[in-house]
């Protein structure tokens, strides 16, 4: 399954980046979301997939029963997801505001800060 998921990760990266390269600002946001899914899943795979046991100590035990999933990537992803959410929420509203203020959703029309 690890191999299959590796391809899923690849698909998420590719799709996310492709969408970010579109000129519509909304696609940019969707692309960002996919990219963030991709990197989370990537991190998850780095702990190697383990079926079944969550890393939780059952009652009357003092440590999780093996085999259990690697807890550290999970914690990292949780942090990354939450951070990603914050950033995305900001980006979504930024784009909404930009569209309202600039009157376009075409990123190629937003060049005034680069080009004189």
């Amino acid at each position: 399954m690890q191999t299959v998921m590796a391809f899923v990760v690849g698909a998420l990266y590719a799709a996310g980046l492709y969408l970010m390269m579109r000129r519509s600002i909304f696609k940019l946001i969707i692309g960002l979301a996919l990219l963030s899914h991709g990197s989370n899943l990537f991190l998850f795979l780095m702990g190697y997939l383990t079926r079944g046991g969550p890393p939780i100590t059952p009652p009357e035990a003092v440590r999780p029963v093996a085999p259990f999933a690697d807890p550290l990537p999970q914690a990292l992803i949780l942090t990354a997801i939450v951070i990603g959410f914050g950033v995305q929420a900001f980006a979504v509203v930024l784009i909404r505001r930009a569209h309202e203020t600039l009157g376009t959703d075409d990123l190629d029309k937003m060049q005034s800060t680069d080009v004189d």
Partner: protein
Amino acid sequence: MTSLILSTATTYLLPLLLLLSVYLLLHGHDVPGGGFVGGVVAAAAFALYAIAHGVEEARRVLHTHPRTLIGLGLLTALLSGVIAFVSNEPFLKGLWTTVTLPVEWKLGTPTLFDVGVYLVVVGVTLMIIFSVAED
């Protein structure tokens, strides 16, 4: 959104959801849950309320400005870490004590930290949803 059915349901769901959120928060140390998910659930409850009854009403039910919740949450998290300084331990060192209420209740700075996370998440989610929805 004026739907009689939704607003009635929401009125009854709000306490249920808040209960769930507190459950997730307090038991997060042992079972799936924790401050973040608990906070999202609580915020979802208020967000639902805002959709059913309007943002104004939801703000009223919340009693405080979400920004204050964020500040309090961060402060709680910070305090939970700084407490350790008192006993000359490093920042965020987990200190535990057992309170015997009707049931034995282990209380520690990590729990306090999670409470901070909870408050921040509630505040942040609501601040975002309220300000966007009010537009």
